[in-house]
């Protein structure tokens, strides 16, 4: 049964007929395959996005031609690898509009970036009178590093509440800010719910109290144009693999004066100026935080992903995903027994849902059987699940390469789920 009103369908189709976006899909070779005999529909980009040929080819080209260790050798390859590596740092800096490249530290991902700030920035300044303030909609990676550092120092972890729609209660959040708060750590967008958080307002209120703010941008970076200076974030962290790049590479942006005052997080090669057995002089920013041989091909891939996103344009991507999200939401509402989880007015392309009497893993298996990949479970956000008193959700998340047909395949698949459990 097709429950999608034709009028709505045709208008959604018309609105997404942006040729540059529609043709993007052809850049992603992984999408050109069948799962269980049906063309793959990938709706799990919030867990990890796929890579376009432009990224895959750039990494291959680098490995085929230019690979050597960076910042070390005097030979041609080392020189080339170092150039590509540092060129990418400039591209990242431009992409999020940091003041300069010293503010861009390469890490293994968002999780490592947050742990770095917890241990290097927070640990030395925390004590039993200090607090870390987070929100109720955070991913485990923006909860557990703070729990660990609070355990180590006796500091307290405060959690600001959200409402039924999955939106942060801004007034209550701001009311919790005072001079005893050492750092606020908050998602720009929620991975489980898609909510875009009012980070600009929170950063302003935090700075009025001289409290620095870390923004977890993992779910925002592939969807929204980020300007760290305009946001005035003190730290902004994200991962390559959520933004069409490879896994194992991420970024810590930090304001230069703050990063300068922080001790190194890890010790090793590349982060030193001089090592004597009696003591070591640490290198300057950003190398102070990049101990050991970095993930060079990951950095190369991240640079290619940034170029790709820039070429398509973040504003185009946002508009494309917004139309798809609206269509997704209106289509899901037609499924029998469905309950949408996360209904904020301002969201990225993520929609969680539950269906009465049907566990999310059964939904996931039946959809997979029809070639549709979604995420099921608690999405590493168990406190969010506790808030809604559910064990997990099914979650469809959108990217540049999705289209109206993908959403129709999802809803057809969900009708089958309901039929099996009827």
């Amino acid at each position, binding site marked *: 049964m097709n429950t999608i009103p034709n009028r709505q369908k045709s208008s959604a189709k018309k609105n997404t007929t942006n040729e540059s976006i529609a043709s993007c899909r052809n850049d992603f070779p992984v999408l050109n*395959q*069948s799962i269980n*005999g049906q063309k793959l529909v990938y709706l799990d980009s919030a867990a990890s996005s796929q890579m376009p040929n432009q990224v895959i080819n750039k990494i291959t080209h680098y490995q085929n031609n230019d690979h050597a260790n960076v910042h070390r050798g005097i030979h041609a390859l080392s020189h080339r690898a170092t150039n590509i590596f540092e060129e990418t740092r400039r591209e990242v800096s431009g992409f999020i509009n940091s003041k300069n490249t010293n503010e861009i530290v390469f890490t293994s991902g968002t999780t490592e970036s947050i742990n770095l700030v917890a241990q290097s920035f927070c640990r030395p300044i925390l004590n039993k009178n200090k607090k870390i303030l987070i929100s109720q909609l955070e991913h485990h990676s923006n909860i557990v590093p703070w729990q660990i550092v609070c355990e180590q120092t006796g500091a307290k972890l405060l959690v600001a509440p959200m409402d039924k729609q999955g939106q942060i209660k801004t007034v209550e959040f701001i009311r919790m800010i005072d001079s005893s708060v050492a750092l606020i750590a908050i998602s720009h967008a929620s991975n489980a719910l898609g909510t875009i958080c009012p980070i600009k307002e929170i950063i302003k209120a935090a700075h009025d109290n001289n409290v620095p703010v870390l923004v977890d941008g993992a779910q925002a970076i592939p969807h929204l144009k980020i300007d760290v200076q305009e946001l005035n974030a003190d730290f902004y962290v994200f991962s390559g693999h959520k933004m069409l790049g490879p896994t194992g590479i991420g970024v810590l942006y930090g304001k230069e004066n703050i990063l300068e005052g922080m001790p190194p997080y890890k010790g090793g090669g590349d982060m030193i100026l001089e090592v004597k057995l009696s003591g070591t002089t640490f290198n300057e920013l950003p190398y102070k935080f990049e101990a050991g041989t970095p993930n060079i091909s990951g950095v190369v891939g991240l640079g290619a992903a940034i170029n790709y996103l820039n070429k398509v344009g973040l504003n185009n991507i946002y508009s494309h995903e917004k139309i798809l999200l609206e269509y997704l939401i209106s289509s899901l509402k037609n499924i029998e027994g469905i309950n949408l989880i996360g209904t904020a007015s301002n969201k990225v392309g993520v929609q969680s849902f539950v269906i009465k009497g*049907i*566990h999310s*893993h059964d939904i996931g298996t*039946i959809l997979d059987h029809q070639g549709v990949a979604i995420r099921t479970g608690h999405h590493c956000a168990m406190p969010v699940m506790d808030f809604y008193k559910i*064990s997990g959700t099914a979650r469809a998340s959108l990217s540049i390469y999705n289209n109206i047909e993908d959403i129709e395949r999802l809803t057809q698949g969900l009708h089958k789920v309901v039929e099996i459990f009827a």
Partner: protein
Amino acid sequence: MKTQAPVNNNLNQLYKRVIIKHAKNPQNFGRLGKKYILSEGINPLCGDKIKIYVDLNQNNIIRKICFEGTGCAISIASTSLLTIALEKQKSNNAIKCAESLIKNLHNDSKSSINSVVNLDELKALEGVKDFPSRIKCATLGWQTFLSSFSDNSTVITTE
């Protein structure tokens, strides 16, 4: 176009009517009021949580098994079937049955699921063999049951 190797994972084999029936209306769901052995199983990635209560008499015969918890259709139906299959069994027989069923679902054994305990409905669980990521769901209740008889009382997992 790339195609995956053919997989014979028929949805109707996984979600047989028996499974759906037990998932929607699990048998012996609840807790035992009197003396019982309690065991607990959790699959943290899935979020499945199951508690099993076993009432064992002096002759080591299982009087009754109850369970409670949350989980997918496969884990709930499988545990519901367990409570029927193993009731009135001697504990050593029940343990053998659980062990052979777990082996069977992992394809480690050629023996039929029904070789130890005769309950036709248990065969419905064999559908998970074509869905490797769901075997842990079908075995959670059975592993949890087995832990009732081990000295180590830790919470078990099949992930």
